[in-house]
């Protein structure tokens, strides 16, 4: 009966070209659209799996503007059964602010799952700060989580091999993609998700902020590419190059 809270963030889809807002304070999502990070999709999947395996519950949480309900509905459509929405502009919240806001909700949950790092701000610390807010242990950057009784068993890749942690609940665990395949929402899942009432809350305190001066785009690197040719006709030039580099197996 594990009560799982999984935390997600609405972020600009950065798989194509990244554009900044005019004030340089945020990534502009008007053209690219919005998503949640792959780490968080895997965290949602693990939350649903743990809830199913233990007869427990999976609640999804986000801190974001009104449009972030889109990401909450996505998580509800794949099996989360409740949602909490702290309605605020996530760009004005630093990692310590976000950790404090999650802590205000997390006290009732046995296991809190988060992505290892947000796809936009890349702070690598919200889960760890949350653990200190709650006075709970934290495992960072794992790809698999199961609950055995009152213990969470977390596994992931370390520098020297596959590592295992066994930690008593309640605990915080941050997830990296790669261990589980996030499921696709079914049509009944989407219908069900629309009917779930989202618990909307105001932030518990004024944010300190992210200490951001501004965002910049990295300068484009000068291109020195040598074009060997076009289409199949380039094959002799390619093989000449492979021979010249000495990489052709004999």
């Amino acid at each position, binding site marked *: 009966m594990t009560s799982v809270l999984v935390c997600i963030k609405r972020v600009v889809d*950065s*798989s*194509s070209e*990244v554009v*900044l807002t005019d004030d340089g304070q945020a*990534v502009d999502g008007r053209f690219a659209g919005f998503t949640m990070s*792959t780490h968080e999709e895997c965290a949602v999947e693990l939350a649903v799996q743990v809830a199913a395996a233990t007869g427990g519950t999976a609640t999804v949480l986000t801190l974001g503007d009104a449009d972030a309900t889109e990401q909450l509905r996505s998580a509800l459509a794949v099996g989360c059964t409740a949602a909490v929405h702290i309605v605020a502009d996530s760009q004005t919240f630093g990692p310590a602010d976000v950790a404090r806001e999650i802590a205000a909700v997390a006290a009732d949950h046995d296991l809190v799952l988060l992505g290892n*790092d947000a796809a*936009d*701000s*890349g*702070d*690598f*610390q919200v889960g*760890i700060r949350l*653990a*200190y807010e709650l006075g709970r*242990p*934290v495992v*960072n*950057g794992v790809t698999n989580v199961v609950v055995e009784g009152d213990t969470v068993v977390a596994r992931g*890749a*370390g*520098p*020297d*091999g*596959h*590592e*295992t*942690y*066994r930690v008593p609940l309640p*605990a915080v665990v941050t997830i*990296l993609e790669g261990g589980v395949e996030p499921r696709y929402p079914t049509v009944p899942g989407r219908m069900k998700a629309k009917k779930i009432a989202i618990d909307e809350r105001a932030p518990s305190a004024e944010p300190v902020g*992210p*200490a951001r*001066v*501004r*965002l*910049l*785009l*990295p300068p484009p690197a000068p291109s020195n*590419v040598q*074009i*060997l*040719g*076009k*289409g*199949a*006709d*380039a*094959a*002799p030039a*390619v*093989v000449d*190059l*492979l021979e010249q*580099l000495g*990489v*052709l*197996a004999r």
Partner: protein
Amino acid sequence: MILVLVETSPSGEAIEVSREAVTFARSLSASGGGVPVDAVVVGEASDALVATLASYGVRQVHVLEGDAFAAFSGAAWASGVLAVRASAGSVVVIAAGTPRGNEVMAHVAARAGVAMAANVLSFSGLSPFVVTRQVVGGSALEEMRLSDRPAVFTVAGHAVEASPAETPGSGEVVTHTPAVDAADLVARVVSSEEPEPDLSGTLKSARVVVGAGRGAGSSDGFADLLELTELVGGSLGVSRVVTSLGWRPHHEQVGQTGSRISPDLYIPCGISGAIQHWAGCSTAKNILAINTDPDAPMVTKATYAVIGDLHEVVPAINEEIRRRRSAG
């Protein structure tokens, strides 16, 4: 004093990104009037490790010893780093932007009640102290004020080139066995196993990697690419979209969330070169891109390129290699 957490390889050497972090600390020291740079290592510091760190200008090598550090725990490592910091009075605490480095520095910052900046590339001022760091997976940069002391951050991989100092440091070894709170040992590694053999290992060590992206078209689109891989005696690496679509297994993925490769030659075929992928292949010595789009980032960043559909170009290359072999 600037304190650098140095991570070591299984053979006990300072890993390259940690040597980069020490190099970064030295440039920060030079701007700050020459404050000393110290290193902290966990477990054991061999004479060779100490000699390397001294050649990088390190004054003191602080070694964290004791049972509390026998298995990894982010909280225990952070408490050890803060114990060293308290005894040595450092104003800056940094690590390499590795998974361990980011984790331990986040613990350090949370415990010290200060901010932490992940994946810093450079600094642009000391008062106020402003760092520039990678965000959005490296697609954008953020200038961030770090006004707290200690200033805690991690240095992004390859932000600077690791280079020994003109004047070596004394490399004096100082051993610490700080008491670690039981609560900091609750979340620690209880077992570590060798990864499954022959998964990403051959990819990471291959001299030639043939890359495949969305341009492969489907899970059936890899036959020619696999033949080329065999003809050049290399490994197949793929972009994230290929593993996300289930066309190839995750252990073949190259990129920020896959393997990082540094082959003599990387041949990305039908890979546009999103920053997430580039993060995994940017250290290849030569890149030969095969792509229909001459403006694709992978083409403009490559050493060599062929403009064309991989399903036409790759079979022609395979045919040419076979023809020359039978002729030779």
